[in-house]
């Protein structure tokens, strides 16, 4: 592997955010299962599960603050917004690739560069997650943390059960997301390439991203 083939795609603040968020999500999911399904699982006492869930929730919120500060501070947030004109054709190309091209060994239609590290589907998904789903999860989590303190806002949304419903549905969504996310991360030129890059920050550059990525 030659040095010029390496691209610095994941700057340090992004990597710190990513892994803090990842570990936080896993702990939140495990404690969330204990809290919601107390009659089925017995990993912690409910009291411990709630305490841990609350602390980790705040860590994840803080990590999100880091993500927002970095991406808006450097204006690299543009990475997340697809070009509206090319969105539909690019999305079709990418869907075709994931649905059939990848199995045949076709090249990935998206070429990763530090300025354009996400394909159009990733951009779309991450905009939804980072600007809608994750904030909604954090806000509802905050409300559920201190129901009495936030009761006016809770009433505006329609009551504690509505707030809880949003939080729970997103909890299921994020749990499903983690499985899909980890799997998609194995679709690099080697199954561990993207994982490695998320630790080192460097992704190997492959001109055509061709069949070798899917050979295993």
């Amino acid at each position, binding site marked *: 592997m030659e040095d010029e083939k390496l691209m610095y795609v994941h700057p340090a603040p992004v990597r710190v955010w990513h892994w803090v968020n990842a570990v936080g999500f896993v702990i939140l999911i495990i404690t969330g299962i204990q*809290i*919601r*399904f*107390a*009659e089925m699982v017995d990993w912690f*006492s*409910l*009291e411990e599960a*709630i*305490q841990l869930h*609350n602390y980790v929730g705040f860590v994840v919120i803080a990590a999100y603050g880091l993500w927002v500060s970095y991406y808006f501070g450097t204006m690299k947030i543009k990475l997340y917004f697809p070009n509206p004109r090319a969105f539909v054709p690019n999305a079709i190309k990418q869907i075709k690739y*994931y649905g059939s091209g*990848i*199995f*045949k*060994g076709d090249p990935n239609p998206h070429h990763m560069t530090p300025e354009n590290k996400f394909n159009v589907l990733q951009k779309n998904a991450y905009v939804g997650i980072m600007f809608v789903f994750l904030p909604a999860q954090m806000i509802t989590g905050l409300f559920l*943390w*201190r*129901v*009495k*303190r936030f009761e006016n806002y809770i*009433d505006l949304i*329609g*009551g*504690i*059960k*509505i707030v*809880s*419903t949003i939080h*729970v*549905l997103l*909890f*299921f*969504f994020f*749990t*499903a*997301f983690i*499985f*899909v996310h980890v*799997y998609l991360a194995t679709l690099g030129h080697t199954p561990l390439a993207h994982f490695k890059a998320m630790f080192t920050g460097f992704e190997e550059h492959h001109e055509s991203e*061709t*069949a*070798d990525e*899917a*050979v*295993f």
Partner: protein
Amino acid sequence: MNIKTCFWVGVFITVISSWLIAIPAHAIENDECMECHSDDSLERSESEGMKEDLFIDYSRFKFSVHNINGITCVDCHSDIEELNWDNEVPHQVSLAMVECDGCHEEEGEAYLNSVHKKAGGKGITIPCYACHGYHFVTHLEADSVFERENKFCLKCHNPDNFHDWLPQKDTHFAFVECAVCHAPESPRYISLRFYDLISKKFLGAKDLLTALDTDYDGFMEKVDKDKDDVISLEELEDMVLLLRQKDVRGTFHGELVLELVPTVHHVNRGGANRECEQCHNPQSPFFEEVYIALNKEDGTGQRQKVERRVLESYYVNHFYAIGGTRVRYLDKIGLVLIVGGLSVVAGHLLVRIATAPARRKRKVQKDEFST
């Protein structure tokens, strides 16, 4: 004297003596007491310059649960047997302590073995009226958690100083009556009250029944279609629909309160329930009994049993015990999401594995071509 004369003399003596015996018991009417005690400046000096107010606000006493049940002043102050109007104070100056357990035997017994009674040994006396008040005891059935707590526990205790271990203590204080945890032997139930979203206040039973075009007696007949004396989720839905047709829009607020049984007095140090799982699980007995409160203006409560499943519905949006009253079908949606996600992953992976040889072959061909 013949037998007949003897009989009539006997009857005469019996009637006269029973009349004479009955006189002292009925002689003192409340009006007589109020001759003096309606004076709002009536008081007596106690030791160390303290004064005891002896004024009784009869307009409040009138609505007390004792007066409503025909209990008179001297029924409780039973050491006043007669009034001597020649004296400045027509009865003895120092009266005996009223013994509530003379009538409320079971309550008295439950109280005997309680932390409040035991405090007596430490130089403090906590008689019944320290919590219940003297003359203006009213029905509590219809009271909300706040009202019940304000009338009793919060007079002396500040729960905020304790309970640091309890997550969201404010929320628990707002929705759970103190004694639900502190008198764990007593039965409890969820009381549902209808909150009108337009007027932003709880709808009294009178307004609710008027909107439903019925009365207390006709309520169940109107709502409980299958006549099983329990309002099912479907029946509650129909009731909410009926209310909407009358432009009454609202939601049910729930509170966890105690049945007012003698054992509520059995509060003991260390005896409180501290196990979160007791409540926060769907099989919790705490949510077995659910009632819609139809409170009357005199403070008495009429309530109708509601199916437990109602707590898991979106008609009760302002009461939610994590885990305990969760909406079950959300779990099914969650299962579909997670199983769906895993299936997509598994399916894609399987096809990737199955097509790997073809890709390898293609790569070999490509490498040969490029060399």
